[in-house]
């Protein structure tokens, strides 16, 4: 029987580690929902975000807030450029999903090759050390990084929820996601919704990359693996359900974390691909979610009979 403290430790570490998966997944799921686009170009954006932070903090020694800010600005600018000069053009041509897939994947590869040329293939981290102070709470080790990661993720998700539910732009994004042609008839700019979803995704990606890059080494080909994880979580969560995808990302991270009790660490990645494959084959529209529904009011006749 495994010690409960060990189980709690795995649970805590799994939840903390899921933070960047959640951010990448939400970024991917948002773009998929609003733009109907499997945007593998987000791997390229991750690469740009990470190496901007790495360069500004380590080579030109900017303060962290400025380096992160520069990464957000550059990543958002590239996201806008890709949307305006590439995705919008393909959309106007009614290109097939295959062409979007090729473009977004090749764009990410182009970014990876350019970054390899500039920074090499050695793993780099945003700060020279990935260690952070640890405190023991009830026998469970909690690092400052864990708390920072959870805090950043919760705040960003709360802001995104508020943005989507309580602002006009957020509701316009939902309208475009439902039916872009109908939304445009009502005067909603689909172009603006696409750009906004791209910018939000860029911000989420920067936050996720910051968390990942302060915890583990990154090489130019790491981001494509991160996007694939986001794809898996998005599919398991169900297409068009951004926050369900986030929950799926947490679930997958926990599955990976707890799998070390049963299988060697090198097989953890395989677990994700099995989940992806079987989730698609068994639930091609995502794992169904059953909601608790309010009981329907009884029809007047039935109420009368019940009264008798």
């Amino acid at each position, binding site marked *: 029987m495994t010690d409960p403290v060990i189980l709690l430790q795995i649970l805590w570490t799994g939840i903390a580690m899921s933070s960047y998966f959640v951010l990448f997944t939400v970024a991917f799921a948002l773009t998929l929902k609003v733009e109907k686009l499997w945007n593998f170009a987000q791997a390229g954006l991750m690469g740009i975000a990470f190496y901007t932070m790495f360069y500004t903090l380590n080579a030109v020694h900017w303060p962290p807030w400025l380096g992160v800010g520069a990464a957000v600005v550059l990543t958002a600018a590239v996201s806008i450029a890709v949307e305006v000069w590439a995705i919008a053009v393909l959309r106007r041509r009614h*290109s*097939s999903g*295959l062409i979007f897939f*090729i473009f977004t994947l090749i*764009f990410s590869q182009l970014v990876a090759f350019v970054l390899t*040329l500039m920074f090499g293939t050695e793993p780099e981290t945003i700060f020279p050390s990935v260690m952070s102070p640890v405190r023991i709470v009830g026998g469970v080790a909690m690092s400052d990084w864990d708390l920072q990661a959870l805090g950043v993720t919760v705040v960003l998700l709360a802001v995104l929820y508020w943005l989507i539910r309580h602002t006009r732009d957020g509701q316009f994004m939902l309208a475009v996601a439902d039916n872009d042609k109908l939304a445009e008839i009502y005067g909603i700019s689909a172009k603006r919704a696409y750009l906004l979803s791209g910018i939000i995704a860029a911000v989420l990606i920067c936050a996720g990359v910051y968390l990942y890059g302060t915890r583990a080494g990154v090489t130019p080909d790491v981001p494509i693996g991160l996007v694939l994880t986001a794809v898996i979580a998005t599919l398991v969560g169900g297409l068009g359900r951004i926050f369900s995808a986030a929950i799926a990302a947490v679930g997958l991270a926990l599955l990976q974390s707890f799998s070390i009790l049963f299988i060697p660490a090198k097989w953890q990645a*395989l677990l994700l691909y099995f989940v992806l494959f079987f989730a698609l084959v068994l639930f091609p529209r995502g794992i169904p979610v059953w909601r608790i529904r309010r009981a329907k009011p009884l029809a007047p006749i039935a109420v009368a009979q019940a009264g008798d």
Partner: protein
Amino acid sequence: MEYLANAGMLIGIYIILAASYNLIIGYGGLNTIAHPIFFALGAYTAALLGIGTTLPSVVCVLAGIGVAVVASVALAVTTLRIEGDYLLIASLGFQLGLLQLVNNFEFTGGPSGLSNIPVTITGPGRGWLYLLICAVLVVVVVWLIWRAMAGPFGRAVRAMRDDELACAALGRSLITMKIVIFAFGCGAAGLAGGLYAYYFQYISPEQFNVAQSATILTMVVLGGIGTTWGPLIGAFVLVALPQAITFMQLPSSLVGPLQGIIFTVLVILFLFVRPHGLVGRREAGVAH
């Protein structure tokens, strides 16, 4: 001269891959991107049999084709009820999962791959002899695909791609047709894998990753999807042009990324300048 033979072999192998992939995605309309894993299965099976047994190389390559065909039927039976983007992503999961197995098993050499694949042809003319064999196989594969697609079976396959319901209403078994073209295309990828393993004598999992999927897919689309000559021209252009940089005497650490940049820039350029492919026609029925 050895360099030219190497480049020629690469072009030949990619033509087989692109032509067979075109059969699946271009003619059959099955959006899968797992083609490199069948290439890998052919290569690894041939290499492992070559290393571990005394079987003739032809038998090892045939075994590689067999393993690729069996795996393709397994993928087809489980996934062909889903379609479009979902099939694309499921095939990606299948590819990455199997690649992870190859990466983790010790008998496949793990991430380092297999480097002690036996030499089957020796002497100064090795490269050219291999090139001749490869050229013959390219002609055979391309002719078989062309022949099949020019006949009644090909018309049925194209009808299935354009309208599955109408095709089924005519009494055609869609699943059988899908499995047949899938098995043939993936078997050809297994053949390309066997050739690759025996010629280059080194294989590793990273040669069969997602980037390889994008490469083969790009060759088909940029050449002209659903055409006979498109994948051939696409493979030739996208292998030959980045090779030009090797004549510039650059440090080896720069050659790889620069070739990658040339390749990806060419792809993006072609996607926007000639979206229907180099030999494809605008009215070919595929949205570009």
